[in-house]
C-alpha cells in the first residue's frame, strides 16, 4: 500500500522538536497519570465497582472520583497510595538514572567516575499491579 510511507523530512524535524521538549518534567507526569487512570479503571471493572462504591470506600464525593478518572486533578502521593491500596493494587515505583548531563553539572570538580553511564534502556516510571487476578475477583 502506498499510504504507509515514511517521510524523512518530517521525521527529522520532529526528532529535533521532541528532543527539545523531552527534558520537561510535565511529560513524565502525564505518562504517569495515564497509567494510573487506566489501572484504576481496570481494577474497578475487575471488582465490579461503581464510582459511588469507590467514593464510599475513600470517603470522598463521587465527583472527585470522576475527576480522578478524567485526569483533571493533580493527585497527591497520599491520595494516590490510598486509592491504589483500597483497590488492591500495591504501588511500586522504578527509577532509572538516565540524565547524565545534570549529574555532570553538579559534579564538575569531583574525581568520582560515574558507574552508570548512558544506558540504552528507556524505562521511566512504572506502576505495576502485583495483585493476581484470582485473589481479587468478585465473589
Amino acid at each position, binding site marked *: 500500500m502506498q499510504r504507509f510511507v515514511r517521510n524523512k523530512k518530517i521525521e527529522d524535524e*520532529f526528532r529535533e522538536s521532541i528532543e527539545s521538549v523531552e527534558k520537561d518534567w510535565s511529560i513524565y507526569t*502525564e505518562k504517569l497519570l*495515564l*497509567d494510573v487512570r487506566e489501572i484504576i479503571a481496570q481494577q474497578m471493572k475487575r471488582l465490579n465497582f461503581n464510582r459511588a462504591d469507590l467514593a464510599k470506600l475513600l470517603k470522598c464525593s463521587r465527583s472527585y472520583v470522576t475527576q480522578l478518572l478524567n*485526569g483533571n486533578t493533580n493527585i497527591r502521593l497520599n491520595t494516590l497510595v490510598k486509592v491504589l491500596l483500597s483497590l488492591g493494587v500495591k504501588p511500586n515505583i522504578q527509577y532509572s538514572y538516565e540524565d547524565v548531563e545534570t549529574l555532570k553539572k553538579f559534579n564538575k570538580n569531583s574525581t568520582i567516575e560515574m558507574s552508570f553511564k548512558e544506558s540504552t534502556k528507556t524505562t521511566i516510571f512504572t506502576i505495576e499491579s502485583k495483585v493476581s487476578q484470582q485473589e481479587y475477583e468478585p465473589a
Partner: protein
Amino acid sequence: MRVVLLHSGTRRKVSAMAIGKDIPIYQDELFPHIDKRLIQRMNIHIEFLSNRQFPVENKSICEQLKGYDNLYELKPKPIRLFFFMMGNDAVITHGFIKKKRTTDISEIDRAVSLRDRCIKEKE
C-alpha cells in the same frame, strides 16, 4: 499492538512514520500553530495505546463510537483521533481539535469512508 497512521488521501493531511518501536510521530498539517506539548501529548497517548492490549477500560482515554462498528477514538484533550482495527494494527485515520460538545458528523463520515477504502485496498 502496532499503531499505524494513514499517510495521504485525507483533506486534512496527517503524515506519519515509525520511530523506534513502531511508535509513529506525526503532524497534522491543518494545525501548523499547534503547540509542541500538544504533539507530545498525542504521542504519549499513542505510545500508551501501542503498549497495551486493545480494550482500554478508561473511557476518558479511549472509547468506541456509539453506533459504529470498528471505529474508536483516542482522547488527548482537546484533540480527538479516530482509529480502527485491522488485524493487530490500530490504524489512525485523522485527527481534529474538538471545540463543540458533540463531535461533528462530517468528521465521523470521513473516518468511516477512509476505513472502508483502506480495508478494500488491503483486500
